[in-house]
């Protein structure tokens, strides 16, 4: 039996990186080869292979080689509530710092 990492680790592997989030989104629409993905995300083939292999280890993506082309599809595992939470949290932290920047700008010179 294949041993997958825990839900939280899987979720992290998948969503803590924006490229991997994007790859999952895209594969959710339709399958793609590694070179198509590399081109879509403006990155080297080696770089994309790394992302795909992390997603593959997590069970979120599976690949199949036909001839010289490796095709990627969504794997047997689906993203969990944890993954959505981690992605939301990350966006929240970034938005909060944006908001803090705007606040500090707005209140500049208000008082010493």
């Amino acid at each position, binding site marked *: 039996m294949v041993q997958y990492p*825990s*839900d*939280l*680790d899987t979720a*992290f*592997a998948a969503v*803590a*990186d924006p490229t991997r989030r994007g790859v999952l989104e895209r594969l959710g629409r339709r399958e793609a080869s590694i070179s198509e993905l590399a081109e879509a995300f403006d990155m080297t083939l080696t770089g994309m292979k790394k992302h795909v292999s992390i997603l593959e280890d997590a069970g979120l993506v599976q690949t199949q080689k036909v001839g010289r082309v490796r095709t990627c599809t969504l794997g047997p595992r689906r993203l969990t*509530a*944890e993954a959505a*939470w*981690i992605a939301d*949290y*990350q966006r*929240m*932290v*970034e*938005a*909060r*710092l*944006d*908001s*803090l*920047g*705007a*606040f*500090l*700008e707005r*209140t*500049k010179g208000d008082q010493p």
Partner: protein
Amino acid sequence: MITTTKRHTLTTPTDRTIRVEREFDASRDRVWRAYTEPELVAQWWGRGNKVVVERDEGRRGGHWRYVEHSPDGEVNGFEGRYREIIPKDRIVRTFEWDGMPGYTILETAEFFDAGEGRTRVVSTSLFFSPEERDGMLQSGMEGGMAESFAALDRLLAEVR
């Protein structure tokens, strides 16, 4: 338009950690106050949503609870406890969202003087699963219970 704040940098130094770094054109004093004075927190923490600071006991062990009210009527509560507060230097606290109870995040905010009146904020978040948290609690509790039973045994032996 904000031209004075640099874009954040985002890295994940270890698994389960989210680290965001930002530089602000404001003194460490002002940034510290924005993080710790409830009436100032309410003005930025909600990212445009209304924030009600229900509790903010800014000391080790103190509770905090902020509730966000979005314009469409959605209400989201966030809370935790302070683990460490060193004025103008760092805040370490737990963070939990009402919607994912048990999923504790340990949040650290560090404040650095970046020169020329600027401040760098480094925010690090470490995620725990409920199983891990329960495991931690349980291992502590089991040890404590064994000690309590031993003490009870001694007491009962004495009063026999």
